[in-house]
């Protein structure tokens, strides 16, 4: 590496720390790199324009649209009501309700901030009232903001699919394979946290009024329109009836028809504002995707991942050791960056190295997302800590303490997911 490059990269990193928007950070790295390589800088625009070459990219705007409309509707409330009728009788039932509802909601919105605000705010008072300790309740709503990232059709999962797909690994990465691979690891996290919830809630008084068959039926009727969504998403893809982007279209259409046409929770007058809001989120994400491709092309052009692999082979000798180092690296990355930034920056750098060690690219994606999920509530700067602190008016130190047990439990799951590839790949290898 020459001095100009190092100096430039340090300057860009400093600007990034000052809050320079990520797309500009990526663009600056690409511009610097291509300039030093002596190319006409129009290649940066040509690379960005490859966004229009990605088959199925329309899945990102369409799933995001579905998530935003769901978030604006009464779906969070109905979801909580139904989970309560189904699971409320268990020890720790209400906490499990919170976990399940959060996971479902995050899978569709991908934006964990929305989950804390929409569902956490609904459940935190309920948890406190039911006698759960304050620290447990706080930790639960804060940490489960990111639970569900591994479930289809979460945006980070799709984004990883596109970034990794662009790298043309020998074992291909498809959105469909990722959707399958996330199921078991995601369920593992929900199960472990549910076990913890049952332990915490074992002595708490059960709801005085037992939920009867009538309540369940009413809740089912109430949430009847949301229930088919997971079936629609996974079923559409795995039956081979729809592609991922077609499933996104069907899902968005379905959600729009239900919330605007049937439940009338969003008026036609308010609808453009909601769609535009989704459009802005899509714009922000796709912009960084496009410029990440430019940066990643510079990395490929200069054979950086290959050199990184050569370098790391000097002191990391086994896939397991590599994965452990990866866990540590991703924990830091997840704490410092938001998940979209981490995916678009680290995938092109690390995936070729991982493949060099014989790690399956789909497994790598799941490990990466699971790790980054912890980053959301890793002190001192995990994003969900700030959102929860603002939303519940609780100081950061208290929140950090409250999240510690969750950090350890989810961390345990991440280690399991890392070292046991079959958790991710077992389902994915089914014929499909």
């Amino acid at each position: 590496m020459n001095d100009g490059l190092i100096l430039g990269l340090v300057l860009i990193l400093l600007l990034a720390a000052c809050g320079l928007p990520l797309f500009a950070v990526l663009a600056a790295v690409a511009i610097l790199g291509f300039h030093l390589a002596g190319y006409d800088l129009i290649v940066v625009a040509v690379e960005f324009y490859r966004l229009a070459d990605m088959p199925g990219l329309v899945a990102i705007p369409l799933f995001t649209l579905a998530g935003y409309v769901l978030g604006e509707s009464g779906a969070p409330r109905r979801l909580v009501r139904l989970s309560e009728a189904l699971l409320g009788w268990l020890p720790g039932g209400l906490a499990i309700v919170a976990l399940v509802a959060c996971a479902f909601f995050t899978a569709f919105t991908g934006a964990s901030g929305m989950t804390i605000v929409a569902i956490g705010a609904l459940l935190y008072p309920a948890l406190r009232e039911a006698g759960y300790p304050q620290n447990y309740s706080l930790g639960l709503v804060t940490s489960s903001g990111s639970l569900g990232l591994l479930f289809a059709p979460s945006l980070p999962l799709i984004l990883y699919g596109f970034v990794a797909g662009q790298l043309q690994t020998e074992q291909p990465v498809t959105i469909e394979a990722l959707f399958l691979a996330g199921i078991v690891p995601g369920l593992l996290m929900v199960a472990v946290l549910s076990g913890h919830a049952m332990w915490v809630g074992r002595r708490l008084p059960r709801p005085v009024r037992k939920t009867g068959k009538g309540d369940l039926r009413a809740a089912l009727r109430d949430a009847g329109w949301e229930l088919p969504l997971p079936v629609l998403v996974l079923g559409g893809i795995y039956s081979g009836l729809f592609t991922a982007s077609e499933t996104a279209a069907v899902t968005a259409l379905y959600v729009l028809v239900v919330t605007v046409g049937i439940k009338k929770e969003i008026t036609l007058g308010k609808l453009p504002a909601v769609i535009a809001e989704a459009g802005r989120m899509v714009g922000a994400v796709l912009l960084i995707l496009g410029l990440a491709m430019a940066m990643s092309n510079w990395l490929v052009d200069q054979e950086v991942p290959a050199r990184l692999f050569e370098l790391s082979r000097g002191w990391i000798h086994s896939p397991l050791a590599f994965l452990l180092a990866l866990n540590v690296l991703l924990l830091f990355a997840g704490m410092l960056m938001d998940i979209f930034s981490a995916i678009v920056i680290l995938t092109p750098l690390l995936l070729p190295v991982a493949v060099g060690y014989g790690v399956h690219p789909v497994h790598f994606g799941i490990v990466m997302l699971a790790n980054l999920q912890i980053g959301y509530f890793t002190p001192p700067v995990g994003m969900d800590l700030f959102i929860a602190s603002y939303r519940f008016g609780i100081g950061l130190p208290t929140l950090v303490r409250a999240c510690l047990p969750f950090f350890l439990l989810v961390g345990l799951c991440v280690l399991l997911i890392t070292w046991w590839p079959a958790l991710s790949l077992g389902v994915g290898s089914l014929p499909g």
Partner: protein
Amino acid sequence: AQTQIKIATLAPDGSSWMRELRVAAAEVEAGTGGRVQVKFYPGGVMGTDAVVLRKMRLGQLQGGVLTGSELSLVYPDAPAYSLPFLFSGWDEVARVRESVDPLLAAGFEERGIHMLGATGVGFAYFLGTKPMADAAAWRGLKLWIPTNDEIARRVFEIAGVGTIPLPIGDVFTSLQTGMIDTVANTPAGTVALQWHGKVRHMVDLPLTYVVAYLVLDQRAWERLSAGDQAVLARAFAAAAARMDANARRDDEAALAAMQRQGLQVSPPDPAEAARWRRFGEQVQRDMEADGSLSPAILAAIRAARGTPAPAAN
């Protein structure tokens, strides 16, 4: 100073093609005393053909391995060899290419592109997830054709078959997701691009001869000294010859492998073969008549083949 020649290709790393290309690169580096270094970007990492051509003009890439249809936008005669049913077999191909390859090279040069080599990939066959026994079976099939493949577009328009144009790099995903279910490709190409996991049926009717050109940006070529140019030309001509020789064997091996995995190869129904042959000949006549392909190239091909033009109906 060292000159880098960067070449993008869709061929996956580890394919027999890449092996031959890397051998040529090593010969170039040795033959020029390290003055010229040839680097490859396999697996399509540099983007689709349109992107590769843009990057060649911008100087990020100096060359690419591209098919005739991909190059047709730059040089309309590039896909001439791929006219359907043009060749009866491998021997005829060899005879024709000996005299016509230089004509194509001259045509490329007029358009700022240096043709370093041309490699026969083999004959393409219909392959699909569903049987393609007769005209009725063709209804409702989702057939892929390469973007900007004018010849394929015309054939299937006459045949009344709906097509889905996509860059070749998108075919794998589209087969996976069911966006397309039928393709035309060589057996070796089908395996190399990993499409074989999806296709179950093949019609044993050689449709068209597929050829890939290794092209360089003319400016990059001219920056090399005459001596270095000669080294490059020799190394890549030898590589192309080896790849040509391998093509037939690779295709046979790939077909056998696919059949072991359950590929059903059905002989074409004679009426069905005649039907497709008719469409192909019609397109040949049309493209010659409206000047889409230059008469000089077509005449040279026919002269070398020793057969007259297809008679008009």
